[in-house]
């Protein structure tokens, strides 16, 4: 489903060239729940940004569902993110002026779904993540765990091929973290959703079907997670 080959990303910090990714090659199959782990600065988030088409690599290739993602034009990349990728950020990244329901509906509306259908789909998803009673609340009125669950519902609203989560529990307490991880696991299990999650918590390994460990911008290990 995803084929990454020789992916490189470097940037300059003053006179020094920093290689965030240094020739990463990996493959993701449909329905997998993969944890991307590694120490700080190993390139985990950079890898997710590049696969999520949020940034441009310095070299290499990314193919998603057989499409050369790096050959897409700006407009096509935007559309690609809308239709095929669901992105979950560490700090939830909800629109503060929109309610929980509106945040989830928004990508569906951009896709051209009618407001009625979008609301129906968003309501279902919010129910699935346990927030059926909180649909009309603004993000500021919700806890971190609740906001992250809204972000997950938003990422799922257009039924993406790939769910990317960048340290989604980093700002949550252990109880909320567990709830969010259980949610990812159930989505993966019940919907067959492909999930690629960045994490640096050892305890998360039990949820992953496979773990790709990065070190210094390279794949150090790639195999079944031993949680």
């Amino acid at each position, binding site marked *: 489903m995803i084929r990454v080959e020789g992916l490189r990303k470097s940037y300059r910090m003053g006179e020094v060239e920093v290689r965030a990714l240094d020739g990463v090659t990996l493959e993701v199959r449909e329905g997998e729940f993969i944890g991307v782990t590694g120490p700080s600065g190993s390139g985990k988030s950079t890898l997710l*940004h590049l696969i*999520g088409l*949020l*940034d441009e690599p310095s070299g290499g290739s990314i193919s998603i569902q057989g499409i050369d993602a790096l050959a897409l034009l700006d*407009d096509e990349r*935007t*559309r*690609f*993110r*809308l*239709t095929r*990728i669901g*992105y979950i*950020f560490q700090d939830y*990244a909800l*629109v*503060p*002026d*929109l309610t929980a329901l*509106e945040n989830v509906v*928004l*990508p569906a*509306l*951009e*896709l*051209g779904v009618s407001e009625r259908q979008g609301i129906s789909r968003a309501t279902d998803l919010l129910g699935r993540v346990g927030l059926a009673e909180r649909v009309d609340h*603004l993000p500021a009125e919700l806890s971190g765990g609740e906001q992250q669950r809204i972000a997950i519902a*938003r*990422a799922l609203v*257009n039924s993406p091929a790939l769910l990317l989560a960048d340290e989604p529990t980093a700002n949550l307490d252990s109880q909320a973290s567990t709830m969010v991880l259980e949610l990812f696991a159930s989505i993966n299990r019940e919907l067959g959703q492909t999930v690629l999650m960045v994490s640096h918590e050892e305890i998360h390994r039990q949820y992953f079907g496979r773990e790709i460990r990065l070190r210094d911008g390279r794949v150090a290990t790639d195999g079944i997670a031993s949680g």
Partner: protein
Amino acid sequence: MFERERVAFYLASRSLRRGSRTSLLLNVAILALVFTNMILLPSIISGSVELFNQQSIDFQTSDIQVRPLEGDQYIGRTAALLETVNRVPGVRRGSARYGIGATILARNRSVSVPVTAIDPRNEVEVTKIHEHMQDGEFLSGGERGEVLIGQFVAGNEDTRKDLFASLGGVRVGERIEIAFANGVTRPYVVKGVYETRSYITDYSALITWDELESLLGTEVDQSTEVLVKADRGADVDEVKTALFEAGVQEEVKTWREAITTTVEESIKTFDVIISISTFVSLVIAVVVIFIVITIKAMNQRRQIAILKAIGIHPSTIIRSYLIQVFAICTLGTLLGLVMVGLLGAWFTANPLVFPDGVVVPQFESTALVENTVWLFAASMAAGFVPAWRITRENIISAMRAG
């Protein structure tokens, strides 16, 4: 179709509804004041032009002015011309005038002003000087030895208050002398002083046609101009055409044509002032909107990056800012219209008093529409630039910076 507009409206409406009320009201108030400022000055100038036009009709040209052909000093066979004019459909009355240069002497002072001979019975039908007597009475037919003078000719005893050289506060009943350009000097009694507030009219004097004939020692059948009053509601251009068709061969001008050369320069100057004022107002609007949207977009850099990250097209995001600008402009314009309406009502009750008359601002619909269009166009451009710039930023950089 219109999906981006729908999502943009979705985002903009919620941002306006749930964003800072104070900030929204402040922006609306600023635009309302800018709009009012754009309308008010031109309306006062329009009011001044309207006053000038009305004064010209009421005191100088009437509706139509018949003058000698170029190269001629007088209109000959004036009595016959008047008969012709008065028969033309749409003409209420014609009145002949004979202007003669003169120097008026009184209280050891002298002023040189035009003295105009009139037939009072006709004159009251074509001008309104008789309705603006400051003191004394208007002339009546057949009077001799009496004169009407304008307020600036009469002047003040304290001549420092005078705008022009005057007779130092001459009053009704006082004896004065007039030395005419034909060499004749005669004593007169001031029968009245008129105050029209038109500078040209108030710096002149009037005598009767009989006095003119006595002065020239002959019956006078020529004039320097014939003023024509049209019937109420008649089209002056049509009346002018009818005069030609009736055989009038002199130079015939409607009041607008007659004053064009005089007013043209003033209107050009006024137009420059209006343009500068409008430009400054628009600059204020542009700067306000630019700052508002820049601050808003800068504060929402991260949010914009997130919207792009989840697949919202940059043009949708730009549109959402433009819709917000449009809403602020609409509310500002509506509030501005209310303010303009209130100012209009206030100025109607309390007109602006200028030395040459009372000015009521004229709020013209074309100016309202033009200025509204300009305000919207300038504001949309000012809102577009910062929104466009920020949506072009790299997603990851914007997310980190925000």
